[in-house]
């Protein structure tokens, strides 16, 4: 008889924080107390609050233990399970109120979330198909197989689901086009090439709830008339590949994949194909070439994959988060799906909170949630009492949302209006210390590296833009650079072959739009207002604060600081490499950075 369950988060982040050894301690302690038959230890997918890992949740109470280590994991068994006493030191303490939270329901990070895509992540053992079935898994597949394919597509159209990969194209229309396309065989593809730096929702779903993707792809196969599916996963995600592979095997064993699924005569099977470090393969046509065993370069659309995709056959391609919505839409209906979110962008969106924000990790909220709720209520605000400056969305294809838009509901269309994109949901919070020119340069550098080289505007254009940005950050900006950047950006947007190039200038354009004054300061005053761009900084010593402790002189790698003990020190500007180690080492705040 099982009286308690210990849910141990085995998401990628918690594993790196020592989840395996924590689990081993728990199992050992259970045995020592002779209660291993009464308490079940379950390794789940990602629970989302990655900075609190490793996380252990005790059920039925739902007690949420965070930052568990090998040293204190035993307390959960010996105190909580044996003596019935909650282990106070492992509970989460709310920084503002200093209150201890007992369950995840007491933690603001969780309470404001609406879990649909992530409903099973962190709640079930991803390796157990039985647990997935117990949460109504594969019910939607059974239901779908009793419906006419057109009826399924009708539900999707009614639901208003839009592709979660970035552009927000209506999913139902994609399915309809693939169904109506002439040609056979047809293919179903899942885009798991989550390359957007800082976005990891797809990884979490593949690792934490792989069966939801298998189920959705089987439904898609039935709806468009395909018997074969491919899941494209990046080799950077070995755990996702391993768990998904396992899940495919289980689904075959249970008859949810293979021949005549659920006795209906419908055949469908899935294969994994691996990507190997090419960002552009997240672009759908490039991804299809990569599956075919070619260089992952994009091709001109039209023809769209729905008409001519994998091996020139009609192909339906959606991303992981989009598929993860499908089974629940089929089970609960279009109306249910529309019950949260905004009119034009119904449903939820998963964001990966990162950067200068208190709580990082994955959060799922209704579309139309404001940035203020995301950053301040769920994210817990900016650490160190600093001011919010902007949030970067859409990674290298996106731009910034500034403080004046904190109360704007975020959905596909609103973010587009202010020059950024939703992207796959990466949301990097920037505080007042961030230099927007430097941020834009960083993202542009990424695109330069990842441009596949097929079309000239992207290959050469982004490189030229990057040179200009570099010049500006190095203090060699010239009059007219802003105009030149904007002009070149427009050409790249208009003439690039695929989405990568067409969106590559966005980080620059968006930051010019909102922070032109910072660009001007770099170019005309040779100053970086946020003190980030190294070449525009000068370090000097404030004489009244210097006590002559010699700490800075000892740290300086180029011996640019001179001065005797207990006498005021001086920095030789001609030698200074602006590494900042004097600034870090001074305990008296005597080093001035400007």
């Amino acid at each position, binding site marked *: 008889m099982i009286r308690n369950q210990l849910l141990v988060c085995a998401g*990628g*982040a918690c*594993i*790196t*924080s*020592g989840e*395996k*050894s924590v689990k081993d301690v728990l199992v050992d302690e259970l045995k020592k107390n002779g209660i291993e038959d009464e308490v079940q230890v379950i390794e789940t997918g990602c629970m989302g*609050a*990655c*900075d609190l*890992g490793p996380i252990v949740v005790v059920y039925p109470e739902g007690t949420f233990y965070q930052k568990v280590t090998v040293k204190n994991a035993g307390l959960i068994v010996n105190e909580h399970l044996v003596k019935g006493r909650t282990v106070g030191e492992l509970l989460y303490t709310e920084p503002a109120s200093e209150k201890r939270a007992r369950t995840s329901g007491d933690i603001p990070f969780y309470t404001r979330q609406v879990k649909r895509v992530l409903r099973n992540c962190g709640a079930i053992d991803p390796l157990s198909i039985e647990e997935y079935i117990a949460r109504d898994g594969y019910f939607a597949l059974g239901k779908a197989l009793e419906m006419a394919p057109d009826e399924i597509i009708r539900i999707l159209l009614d639901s208003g689901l839009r592709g979660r990969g970035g552009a927000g194209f209506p999913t139902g229309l994609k399915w309809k086009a693939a169904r109506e396309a002439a040609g056979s065989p047809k293919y179903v593809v899942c885009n798991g090439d*989550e*390359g*957007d*730096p*800082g*976005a*990891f929702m797809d*990884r979490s779903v593949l690792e934490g709830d792989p069966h939801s993707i298998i189920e959705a792809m089987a439904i898609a196969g039935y709806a468009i008339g395909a018997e074969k599916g491919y899941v494209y996963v990046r*080799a*950077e*995600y*070995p755990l996702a590949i391993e768990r998904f592979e396992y899940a495919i095997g289980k689904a075959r064993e249970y008859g949810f994949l293979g021949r005549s699924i659920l006795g209906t005569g419908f055949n469908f099977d899935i*294969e994994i*194909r*691996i*990507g*190997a*470090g*090419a*960002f552009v393969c997240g672009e759908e046509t490039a991804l299809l070439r*990569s599956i075919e*065993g*070619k*260089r*992952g*370069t994009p091709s001109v659309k039209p023809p769209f994959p729905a008409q001519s995709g994998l091996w020139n056959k009609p192909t339906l391609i959606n991303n992981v988060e989009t598929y993860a919505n499908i089974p629940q839409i089929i089970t609960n209906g279009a109306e249910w799906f529309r019950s949260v979110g905004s009119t034009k962008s119904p449903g939820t969106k998963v964001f*990966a909170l*990162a*950067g*200068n924000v208190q709580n*990082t*990790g994955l959060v799922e909220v209704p579309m139309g949630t404001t940035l203020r709720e995301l950053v301040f209520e769920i994210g817990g605000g900016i650490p160190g009492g600093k001011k919010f400056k902007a949030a*970067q969305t859409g*990674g290298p294809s996106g731009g910034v949302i500034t403080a004046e838009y904190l109360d704007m509901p975020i959905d596909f269309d609103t973010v587009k209006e202010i020059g950024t994109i939703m992207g796959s949901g990466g949301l*990097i919070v920037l505080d007042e210390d961030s230099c927007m020119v430097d941020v834009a340069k*960083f*993202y542009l550098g*990424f695109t330069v590296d*990842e441009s*596949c080289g097929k079309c000239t505007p992207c290959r050469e254009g982004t490189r030229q833009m990057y040179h200009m940005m570099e010049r500006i950050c190095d203090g060699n900006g010239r009059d007219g650079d802003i105009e030149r950047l904007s002009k070149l950006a427009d050409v790249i947007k208009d003439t690039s072959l695929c989405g990568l190039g067409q969106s590559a200038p966005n980080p620059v354009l968006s930051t010019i739009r909102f922070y032109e004054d910072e660009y001007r300061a770099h170019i005309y005053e040779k100053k970086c207002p946020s003190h980030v761009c190294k070449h525009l900084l000068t370090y000097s010593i404030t004489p009244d604060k210097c006590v002559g402790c010699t700490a800075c002189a000892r740290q300086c790698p180029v011996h640019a600081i001179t001065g005797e003990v207990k006498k005021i020190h001086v920095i030789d500007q001609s030698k200074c490499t602006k590494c900042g180690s004097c600034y870090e080492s001074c305990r008296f705040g005597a080093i001035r950075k400007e």
Partner: protein
Amino acid sequence: MELDNVTRPADQPQPLSDEDRCFLRELVETNRVDHHGRLSYMDIMFDLEHHYGNSLPGPVLGEVARLAETSPAQLNGFVTFYTMLSTTPRGKHVIRVCTSGPCHVSGSPAILSSLRRLLGVDIGETTPDGEFTLEGSSCLGICGVSPVLMIDDDAYGNLTADDLPRILDAKRSGGAQ
């Protein structure tokens, strides 16, 4: 599929032995069957890297192209497109330091410079003892514990420069975490 790790002397591609040919034929045929006639080149490449010490020797690629009925140029084009594959010899373990945004902000440049110092090699280079190759990587998707790196298939997070010697030692002696 687990294959024995056969380390080759670096630099010079050796002519293929009968054993190699036999191994390659079987690898390609198994892959063809496993993937219902549509070869998965990426799986083949990863199996080859596993077998030939983390890199893809030219003669091996030539033989695979022949077996797969494609041209060596086509296959070479494929291999050189993907940053995780390598035609130059690499060490026993490949260290991939995440260099993307969130890790950059939380300290990956410092991790990289510590590794450069500890290993005495730069990005893209292999230590003289053939143990480690240092590489940069795109986002590893565990940004919640940034900065992160991955050695072979094991990820390490919340890194500080002090953690690195211990991690490297564990890898040298064959352990994981």
